[in-house]
């Protein structure tokens, strides 16, 4: 199977197997790729520290505005979904509780939603425009 059919096949498989397992798996992959890209960006931003304190503060300033505050909520969502789902499949594999995987999925979702509510509440002030003066 070649790369050129990749998306078509993935879509077809998803379409035929509509269940939480498939959705969790797809989201896990998508968030995984997203986080890997983020890791590179994050390293780039922080690496400014090598050039000194001022550069660091300046570059951090670029990404600390309401738009990025909103994106950050997405990042938190990606991280926690990937984390919780990873824990779920690890637990299922290691402890032989595969038959309850759906229960685990819904527990995961509940925890995920709680974390997201907390994240949004805490992030809310930063998302209001004009809160920052910038640097």
């Amino acid at each position, binding site marked *: *199977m070649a790369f050129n059919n990749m998306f078509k096949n993935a879509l077809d*498989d998803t379409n*035929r197997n509509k269940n939480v*397992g498939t959705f969790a*798996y797809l989201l896990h992959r998508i968030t995984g790729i997203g986080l890997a890209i983020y890791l590179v960006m994050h390293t780039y931003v922080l690496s400014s520290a090598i050039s000194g304190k001022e550069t660091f503060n300046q570059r951090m300033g670029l990404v600390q505005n309401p738009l990025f505050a909103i994106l950050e909520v997405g990042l938190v969502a990606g991280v926690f979904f990937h984390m919780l789902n990873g824990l779920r499949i690890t637990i299922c594999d290691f402890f032989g509780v*595969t038959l309850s995987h759906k229960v685990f999925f819904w527990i995961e979702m509940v925890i995920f939603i709680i974390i997201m509510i907390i994240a949004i509440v805490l992030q809310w002030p930063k998302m209001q425009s004009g809160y920052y003066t910038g640097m």
Partner: protein
Amino acid sequence: MPTFKVFRYNPKTGDQAYFQTYQLPDVKGMTILEGLYYILENLDSTLAFRSSCRMGVCGSCAMHIGDKYRLACETQIADIGDTVTIRPLAHMKIIRDLVVDLTPFFAQYEAIKPYLIPVGEPPTREFKQSPAQRSKIDIYVDCILCAACYGSCPVVATDEKYLGPQALLKALRFVNDSRDGATNDRLSYLATDYGVFRCHTIFNCQQVCPKNLDPTGAIGKLKMKSLIAKFTGKLKKIG
């Protein structure tokens, strides 16, 4: 009146696959397979589909019905709804209509050495096996080789060399069998790049298994066994 939307494809008459619609009579308790036979016998004798026992043990008639892979013989039309969309198993070459080429599926089945390799010479009577030992292989011996799991597994979709849920479940049946003496050889083969660790724990196979055998769980158990064998130095190099 139930409507069947059946996947049709015949390389002899055209390259294009399409869905054909049939109207069926409303009969209480009619199964999908009976519906297909009704089409074959009364509406369209060119329809091709596999079937044999019509009671859920031969595994011929696994296909994609409605929203997931099922056995046509033990699914009642009423449980699916008024419009039933029927497609063949995925991940294998479609030969005609609902018939797919099962060669890769059986190739994986054969690759795991699906037969008992006993320790030493067999006794004059039976091998003694306690009910507790027998219960370890209880559900895994019920597999009917219908290939529904194989069709539902996204890893199989992209890599035909992956052993697939059925073969791995079958392997666990022998690994767990108290009479089998080749556990480490089996695990060595199963722990390779085409074996258990390619499973991404997606649970599609568990979802579709008409016998509720939980291949995902079987693969999980094999992963643990392989890891333990690896860290205790029991795995052998293959090839």
